[in-house]
């Protein structure tokens, strides 16, 4: 039977946990959600599966491969991304080995001393993990697990234990939640605090941080700064958080809502549990006989 649903109801972390515990083999495919006019059982708009966003393969409960629609995931791309091949080397290899399968290409590259086997395994592992960590932050999207479907034999599969992936994924989700709650609205602006010169003295910023700092202006929203620097929402939130914690920028916050956060609803003053019913065993046996006879 298919394992399918929507990530908003059953998160990527929960799916990975299930695959790990059940030792499943197959491919998890995540799709773009296409809104329908129907609602699901809990009143949310039902999302149909649209274009494919990502697919992740598992063998006997271990993660073995991942790819997204925006990244082809072939070996040259993976090694280039891991800085094991320069852009120029990647371009040349792509031209010369256009129709060579990953496994054959890996042998060629090792024999030509471009990379070692360890480089290849490590790069594929990191590439796969990067994709999966990204998927873990997706809060919505139809998914389907195709039992026993695995990538073609030309692909290099590097088995990765899911336990650590799940723990790291959970940590990242917590971090994202913290960042989101710290800066829930990206339409806020940034400004420098009084005496910025003093505060920036002796501070070592990364290239990305400097790029954000260069756009600090009360007229630029954080969202605009992210777009200008080609950064994701999480990346910009992380950088703004760091800069703000260091006292280098200030976020102009909206007014706190007057009514404040809603209190969680639930039972108030729950009654003590009722005493356990004393039913004789003969009664239960009679019930069993009666139901059997129906």
């Amino acid at each position, binding site marked *: 039977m298919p394992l399918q649903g929507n990530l908003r109801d059953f998160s990527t972390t929960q799916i990975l946990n299930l695959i790990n515990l*059940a030792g499943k083999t197959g491919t998890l495919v995540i799709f773009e959600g296409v809104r329908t006019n129907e609602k699901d059982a809990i009143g949310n708009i039902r999302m149909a599966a649209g274009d494919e966003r990502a697919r992740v393969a598992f063998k006997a409960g271990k993660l073995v491969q991942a790819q997204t629609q925006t990244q082809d995931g072939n070996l040259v791309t993976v090694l280039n991304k891991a800085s094991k091949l320069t852009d120029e080397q990647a371009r040349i290899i792509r031209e010369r080995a256009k129709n060579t399968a990953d496994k054959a290409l890996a042998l060629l590259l090792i024999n030509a001393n471009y990379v070692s086997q360890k480089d290849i395994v490590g790069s594929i592992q990191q590439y796969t993990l990067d994709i999966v960590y990204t998927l873990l932050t997706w809060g919505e999207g139809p998914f389907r697990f195709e039992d026993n479907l695995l990538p073609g034999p030309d692909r290099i599969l590097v088995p990765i234990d899911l336990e650590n992936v799940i723990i790291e994924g959970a940590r990242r989700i917590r971090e994202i939640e913290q960042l989101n709650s710290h800066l829930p609205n990206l339409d806020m602006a940034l400004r420098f605090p009084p005496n910025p010169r003093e505060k920036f003295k002796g501070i070592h910023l990364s290239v990305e941080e400097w790029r954000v700092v260069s756009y600090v202006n009360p007229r630029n929203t954080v969202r605009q700064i992210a777009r200008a620097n080609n950064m994701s929402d999480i990346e910009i939130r992380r950088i703004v958080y760091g800069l703000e914690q260091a006292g280098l920028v200030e976020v102009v916050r909206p007014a706190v809502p007057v009514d404040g956060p809603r209190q969680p609803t639930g039972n108030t003053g729950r009654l003590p549990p009722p005493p*356990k019913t004393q039913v004789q065993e003969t009664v239960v046996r009679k019930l069993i006989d*009666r139901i059997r006879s129906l």
Partner: protein
Amino acid sequence: MAMNQVKMVVTGPFSSGKTEFISSISEIDVVKTERTISSDAEREVKSQTTVAMDFGRITVDDDLVLYLFGTPGQRRFDFMWEILAEGMLGFVVMVDSTKPETFREAKSILETFRAYAPTPFVVAANKQDLTDAWSIEDLRIALRIEDGIKLLPCVANDKESVKNVLLELLYSILEEMDTSASTAG
């Protein structure tokens, strides 16, 4: 001699098949307390829902009657749950195997009922006859149901399937009685 009346509760999220389950086995037409649904979202799932409780009956003999109570699925009626749970022999938690969006709610209801009384229970994975149903093994992990708890395939409109769920619950009740007796002895 006073008639011995025992009750079991059938609970679960909205539209998980509780009313159908009771209807399949009850010897009387189920006393349905369904009303036309008020919320648009709920209306699209089914046109009527259980407001206070469903009520089915199985007569064993002149002295013994089993009542089956179905709880209303919507949270806004949860004040009724505790009343229904009082004195129950055991309970069945219904889960619609084709609706993962209700799994979280099903788990929450299960834990709520578990807290009401330390009575045996089983989980019935309804709609296992449909092609898009999650498998029992996957449901067990998704709902985080411990190995010792019975998670049973079920088709709520199939009498044999419903009988099987109730029998499994009764077997669990018997086992619990045996355990209690041996502990006490």
